[in-house]
């Protein structure tokens, strides 16, 4: 494949990843969020496979398949089941001040480009231009965790951050060494197991997954 075309496909997929990140920032329905998360994973997985093909790095195929199974199939499935079991699919979260959140998101993207400018100049890889997008995805995931007050939403924000980190590794260095990627995937899997248990605990104790209700531990005066 021509390097030029590959670079363009890479940028296009990066744009789609960022678009899904912004989509998640404003999506209020639980199922909608899970679907957006699955799409983001799919774009990432495609991107990794293409980079692997262009740069001739075969270990990236393994990462790509790993992303596909973990983030496109397994995690969305688990989330789906949990949402159904806990009957929170009807809960529509009240998200305050969507335009403001979007503006902060845009500011974060610009900030990421600014921060990554020196790194981009040092890089010679096909994917160098997408590193800023990766950092922006991490930041938007973080923003989502701060602004949203639902346990499921916070977890999806957390997983979106992890997506951004994975994307960063692909853009900056054609992926981390395989042992590290496998280890990170294992950690995510354990985390998924834990938040699954947590959802049930929070639900039975607080009768809702609204984390605003958890406000007993405050500094006393």
């Amino acid at each position, binding site marked *: 494949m021509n390097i030029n075309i590959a670079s363009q496909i890479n940028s296009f997929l990066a744009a789609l990843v960022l678009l899904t990140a912004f989509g998640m920032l404003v999506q209020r329905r639980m199922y909608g969020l899970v679907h957006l998360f699955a799409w983001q994973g799919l774009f990432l997985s495609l991107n990794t496979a293409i980079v692997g093909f262009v740069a001739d790095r075969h270990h990236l195929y393994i990462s790509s398949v790993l992303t596909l199974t973990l983030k496109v199939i397994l995690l969305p499935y688990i989330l789906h089941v949990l949402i159904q079991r806990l009957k929170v699919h009807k809960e529509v979260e009240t998200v305050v001040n969507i335009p403001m959140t979007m503006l902060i998101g845009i500011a974060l993207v610009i900030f990421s480009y600014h921060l990554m400018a020196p790194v981009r100049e040092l890089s010679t890889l096909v994917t160098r231009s997408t590193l800023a997008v990766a950092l922006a995805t991490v930041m938007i995931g973080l923003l989502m965790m701060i602004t949203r007050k639902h346990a499921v939403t916070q977890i999806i924000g957390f997983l979106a951050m992890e997506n951004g980190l994975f994307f960063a590794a692909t853009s900056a260095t054609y992926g981390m060494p395989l042992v590290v990627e496998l280890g990170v995937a294992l950690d995510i899997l354990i985390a998924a197991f834990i938040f699954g248990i*947590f959802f049930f605990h929070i639900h039975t104790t607080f009768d809702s997954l609204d984390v605003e209700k958890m406000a007993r531990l405050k500094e006393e005066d």
Partner: protein
Amino acid sequence: MLLVLLLVPLVASVILAFVGDRKFAPEINIMGSAATFAAGAGLAVQVYMEGPMLAGGKFFFVDAFNVYLSVLTSFVSMTTAVFSRRYMRKEREHGRVGHIRMRFYHAMFQLFIFAMLLCLLTNNVGVLWIAMELATLSTVLLVSLYRTPTAIEAAWKYFILCGVGIAQALFGTVLLYFAAEKVLGEGGEALLWTNLSRISPELEPTVLSLAFVFLMVGYGTKVGLVPLHNWLPDAHSEGPTPISAVLSGLLLNIALYALVRCKVLVDGATGTHHAGNIMMGFGLLSILVAAFSLLRQKDIKRMFSYSSIEHMGIATFAFGLGGPVATFGALLHMLVHSLAKSSIFFTVGHASQMHRTQEMDRIRGLFRGNPLVGWGLMLGVMAIVGMPPFGIFTSEFLILTATMKDAPLLTPFLLLGLAVAFAALFRRVQSMVAGDVPSYQKPMKAAHVPVLLHMALVLVLGIYMPDFLNKWFHTAVELLK
């Protein structure tokens, strides 16, 4: 020996998961931890005789810096296992935990020890991150073991905030790999610490200083540095006390260890004091904020969690200051703080079981009610506030001397923090140990071996520094220059 040290807790974890809540499960837990400590001691002897070494195809390594932390980790986990036998039996009698949760508790305890040892002994900076995340994940559900609303809230906060924090550290690791790959070429070799420290002057300074900001925020969250400390008092106070002891005494040290390893690389690349200054700022802020927060605490475990933040601040500050005296002081401080703090948590655990509350206003008359618990707490607090002749006095004295020499303007702030912490802790502990035994206090048999052992060690380290420790600390100071 190194691989044995890692394998023992992992195997013990699997065995305990199968054994479940049998009568002898706590004993297996103790035996597993004792075997881990034996392996740790064996490794220490080996390192003392033969010097630093690599194992498992360069994948693991041990040098003067991580060998003493490994021994410390395996030692404290052993004494905590001993303490936990009596403590958890009492908790079961009080009906706070059941069958399934006890099985889970023992298995996760060993897995946690494994994760911490993996953090210390791995040579790969990426695996270091993975092990750190594993250590967090294995303790999240232990913090929420009692399933009370506050415990669940604390654990959720711990899970989310540490997850976010540590994600930043992964981004920093990606940037580090990006810089390293240019010098060392692609593949796992480029993340090996032994390789990185060799070529650190050739690494790109701009990328490394950017990476350090992310690593600082990431691992700093786990160290519990202000303003990233929000989760720490909750997580350390709501879980079972043995877990509080290992979280405060060990896990914070491990996170600081990771941060210091990264700082060495950044210093090598930039050749400036940039990273050190950031660490000094975070450290000093932590000391001051934690010292003043100590004054307002009502819950005994929360108070000592803030004290942990303060002491981690002191160590971070000293590592940031650099120089042989401050670094020596910081290494010693990590060791003695860990021993003293876990011992305090042991006594605090017993004290709150005797009164069935963690509220300090209701804890009274410990000297008369149970002299071991009372005196253990009193001496522990005396050690932790830095009274001579305990070891913390020595380490804080070294750090203060170095500050007066290298950054004299910061000395008053450091002294203010230490003085406020001193006053806050003393005021509280005196009212708890003195006085008559209240009617609601129940007598109990305390686990005395761990407390006595820890206090004796802290005392000995204040008076006499063994030769092997001295040698390791000096080598580690060279290493971290």
